[in-house]
């Protein structure tokens, strides 16, 4: 049972960090399937907590070959772009989204689609909470579609990435989700 987002936002940053539900490799290896029938409107997904440091930002810049100085050059960020610090990458946040949806739908569901906006500037020292909540569900083409509200909030409750997503879960007695994924015809 995940800690509710509203409860997390009433905690101190260190308490939030202790409730991080990001799975390790074994957790992902042994992940049990969530079926369509298991899910109800209003359910919350596990909370992934992050505490990005300048080193994390540098590692992401290097990994994707993004050389924009606002992400690793503090002097440039403060004095040239007048930012509050070096900034967490939007590209990192938007890569967490499909990871988060993948993990929740493993092993046989599908993280179909998401849309989101980048709003607040995130900086090292922020504690970030990736969250999701079920807004509706429906069956189509013998698959279970789950609509979600998603986002990444700071410990202060500022929403930095409001969005929505749709994932596909298998029906308990249904056929496998097609792979590569083929959405049902409208």
């Amino acid at each position, binding site marked *: 049972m995940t800690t509710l987002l509203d409860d997390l936002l009433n905690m101190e940053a260190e308490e939030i960090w202790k409730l991080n539900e990001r799975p390790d490799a074994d957790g992902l290896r042994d992940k049990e399937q969530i079926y369509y029938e298991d899910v109800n409107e209003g359910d919350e997904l596990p909370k992934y907590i992050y505490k990005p440091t300048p080193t994390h930002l540098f*590692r992401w810049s290097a990994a*994707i070959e993004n050389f*924009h100085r606002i992400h690793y050059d503090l002097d440039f960020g403060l004095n040239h772009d007048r930012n509050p610090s070096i900034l967490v990458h*939007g590209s990192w946040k938007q*890569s967490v989204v499909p990871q988060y949806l993948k*993990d929740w739908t493993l092993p046989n569901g599908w993280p179909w689609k998401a849309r989101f906006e*980048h709003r607040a500037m995130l900086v090292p020292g922020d504690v970030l909470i990736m969250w999701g909540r079920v807004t509706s569900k429906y069956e189509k083409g013998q698959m279970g579609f789950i609509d979600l509200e998603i986002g990444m909030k700071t410990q202060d409750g500022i929403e930095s990435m409001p969005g929505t997503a749709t994932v596909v879960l298998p029906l308990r007695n249904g056929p496998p989700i097609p792979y590569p994924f*083929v959405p049902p015809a409208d």
Partner: protein
Amino acid sequence: MTQQAPPTALTPEVQAMVGVSGDVVESWGVVDGEYMRRFTQALMDPDPRYWDDEFAKSTRYGEIITPPIMVSYLASRIRPDQGDPITAAFEENPESDGIGSVERPGELPPVPTNLVRVLNAGNEIELYAYPSIGDTVFFQNRYSDIRERLGRDGTPFLIITRETRFWNQNDVTLCITRASTIRR
């Protein structure tokens, strides 16, 4: 005295850009395990489907897979035959922001508007298949939508959506990304 309506930003020339596509681009190199190791560690995704060959074979995918939208970054790698755009950017401007005027293959022609201020308006991703190690990735950009909105003061602005489709050597669509920008 009649008030004059502000001129539209969605001119026929701007509207004509919807559907305009860039070149089909074959990404440099292939989807490789070392790029993925760095990517997944930086993403903090320890999924064994990315690195445990034996386990990956037991999954529905039957092989090592790679993260869903990793190809969208891999595809923008600077090609080794492209020179050194970083050094060039600082030669041109010692105060360069680090991305300078790096040219990316497959770019779209600019939208003919005098609205120059650019703001991020949102992103969309659609996933269809996980890229495999060794895949060759192709991509193509296109303007999928351009619409006009009015600001609070009645001044028109544009929302421009650029869609990019990524596919592999077997013509399997891997993912589609859309990035919308506001032009004021």
